[in-house]
């Protein structure tokens, strides 16, 4: 597979739990050597016919699903406006809401941990696992856990981690990385999954004969892990400040099992993922699943408010099941850096993935090509925002600024505006390519001097006309050769507009 070979060592073969996300770390290292690495990944992706077919089908369906769901939603615009105001208001008062949230969560018995960096966050989770004597952890999908490279940290400490979201489970078996924040294995076909289950898990031919069979096999395999695990790790879609609750949505039910069966639950919360009240949550939830997949509701919307309730003295006893301990790790990892910048609007994001599904660039190259944890339009702002533009200067350039993302964002984030800010910053910090910076300066110098502009225009016109054949140029010089790699270029007209226009105007005036 062209995808997996570009991501480091082949996976080990001793069962579902033994894979590290070393592959992920390797790709992070790759991204440091910006420049050609990005374009190489793009070329690899563009050459992969199966990937492009899969991308086209998946994003097409998800985008169409979203369109249908929104067309059928009576108050869609009002809800989006409200969701935007809710998220904007929350971010604008983020310190207050974080204080309120943690106070309420602690009151109910949650343990709150704070982490400034990715490494701190990973270390914290490892410490909790070690303190509880955990040797096996189950995980429900969390992009934040990818950000902090949690699986690698846990496995280095001798703690096995099993991904339980079906797509993430496959990704883990393959030693791969998710390529879409909602549909992690959009880049894999059923034959790939069948082969993985047979090779790594000893599945029989019958057990992988159909997609339902493979799903049943995964269910059976993972059920044991849920029961044996001492710790469940999850992300959080949104936390509710006034109740101290965590909202976690899934379709598969692995979110429920992960946060119910193991005795210890650790929830990873990006510090910007809050809303003030449950009524506010209700507004965002009306938009979240519709934006992500076109479903009116995800199958399971979980609100977790504290660990399992204990006997409260006077009444009928504690709850029969649930985790005894609930730890919430609140993670910064560059979010305050984003917050204090002109890019702060990106923090309104609720991670629905709608922007990926409509992005004409993402639809061509897929998630891995971007090289970071978050791909597509959202990733092109978040990656430079949290890890620095010096590492990710190319991502904001990888957009035609068509605006399709802004059109579908449930909280109306103006991603093209933010990409332009990043591009301007790249120019200021000399991170844009030399030919671009010098070329634009030269163009501006010419274009603001009408006499020189006309002179140069004339020259280029005559040159072009001389070289053109049948009104077209098939080769352009310098960086412009990139155009003629795949396109002809129209030859300049014999006369410029002003050269045609002036005589006509003069004639009109004479006759007037």
């Amino acid at each position, binding site marked *: 597979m062209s995808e997996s070979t570009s991501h480091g060592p082949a996976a080990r073969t001793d069962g579902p739990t033994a894979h590290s996300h070393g592959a992920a770390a390797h790709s992070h290292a790759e991204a440091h050597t910006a420049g050609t690495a990005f374009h190489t990944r793009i070329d690899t992706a563009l050459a992969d016919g199966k990937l492009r077919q899969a991308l086209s089908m998946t994003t097409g369906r998800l985008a169409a699903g979203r369109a249908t769901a929104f067309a059928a939603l009576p108050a869609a615009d009002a809800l989006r406006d409200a969701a935007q105001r809710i998220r904007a208001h929350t971010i604008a008062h983020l310190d207050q809401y974080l204080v309120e949230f943690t106070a309420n969560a602690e009151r109910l018995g949650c343990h709150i941990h704070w982490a400034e960096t990715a490494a701190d966050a990973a270390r914290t989770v490892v410490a909790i696992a070690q303190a509880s004597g955990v040797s096996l952890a189950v995980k429900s999908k969390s992009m934040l856990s990818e950000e902090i490279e949690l699986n690698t940290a846990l496995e280095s400490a001798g703690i096995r981690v099993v991904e339980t979201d079906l797509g993430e489970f496959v990704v883990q078996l393959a030693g791969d990385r998710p390529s879409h924040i909602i549909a992690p294995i959009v880049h894999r076909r059923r034959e790939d999954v069948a082969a993985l289950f047979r090779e790594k898990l000893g599945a029989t031919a019958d057990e992988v004969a159909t997609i339902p069979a493979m799903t049943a096999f995964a269910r059976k395999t993972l059920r044991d892990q849920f029961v044996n695990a001492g710790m469940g790790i999850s992300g959080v879609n949104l936390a509710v400040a006034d109740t101290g609750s965590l909202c976690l949505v899934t379709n598969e039910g692995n979110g429920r099992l992960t946060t119910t069966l193991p005795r210890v639950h650790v929830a990873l919360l990006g510090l910007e993922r809050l809303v003030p009240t449950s009524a506010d949550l209700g507004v965002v939830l009306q938009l979240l699943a519709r934006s992500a997949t076109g479903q009116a509701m995800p199958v399971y919307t979980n609100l977790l408010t504290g660990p399992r309730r204990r006997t409260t003295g006077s009444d009928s006893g504690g709850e029969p099941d649930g985790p005894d301990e609930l730890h919430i790790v609140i993670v910064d990892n560059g979010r305050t850096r984003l917050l204090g910048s002109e890019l702060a609007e990106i923090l309104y994001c609720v991670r629905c993935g709608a922007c990926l599904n409509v992005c*004409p*660039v993402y639809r061509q190259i897929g998630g891995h090509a971007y090289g970071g944890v978050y791909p597509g339009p959202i990733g092109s702002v978040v990656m430079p925002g949290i890890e620095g533009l010096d590492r990710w200067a190319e991502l904001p350039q990888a957009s035609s600024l*068509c605006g399709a993302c*802004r059109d579908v964002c449930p909280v109306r984030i103006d991603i093209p505006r933010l990409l332009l800010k990043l591009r301007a910053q790249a120019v200021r910090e000399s991170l844009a390519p030399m030919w671009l910076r010098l070329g634009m300066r030269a163009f501006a110098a010419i274009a603001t001097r009408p006499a020189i502009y006309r002179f140069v225009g004339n020259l280029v016109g005559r040159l072009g006309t001389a070289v053109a054949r049948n009104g077209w140029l098939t080769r352009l010089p310098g960086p412009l050769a990139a155009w003629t790699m*795949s*396109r002809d270029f*129209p030859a300049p007209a014999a006369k410029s507009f002003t050269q045609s226009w002036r005589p006509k105007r003069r004639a009109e005036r004479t006759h007037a």
Partner: protein
Amino acid sequence: MARQTIDVLSASPDPVVVPSGSCADMIVNHYPELLAEDAVYGSKARELASRTWELSQLLVDGLGTTDAGFRTSVRLAYHASCHGLRGLGLRDAPRQLLGAATGGQCVDLPDGETCCGFGGLFAIKMAAVSNAMLQSKIDSIESSGTEAVVATDVSCLMHIGGGLRRRGSHVRTMHIAEVLAGSDHE
């Protein structure tokens, strides 16, 4: 360059008509934002923005006509250029005008609102992706069986036309102004 353009276009108080969705979007939406902090040009930018029109908007919204008076017999498919579509909200005006000019024979391209891949310098900086997007657009064009592709932006048309020609296609490109002027020629 923005200041220069503002000076030139402020030499007279007349409405400005721009036969390009992206250029009009730049003047109407981006100039005021770019120059928001500029003591002198901030208000000039807003003033210019208030009297700048993309061509089809001027005809339909400004002058109240959906029929420019000429007819063409070319079979057309419409590509909705991104900045006009999403920046200026250009949805109905071009389609109405094209409908009148062709006697209802202008269809929307399949995936007609998907970016063609030009994106300005994007076409050079990200040439491989730009080309991939272009080839998808050309596939849509060929599947529509149309004679010519029409759009409000010369930039998209150069990019699409250049790709069509390189592929040996006979499909032509026309700017909306050419169609509205009754032109049947390339």
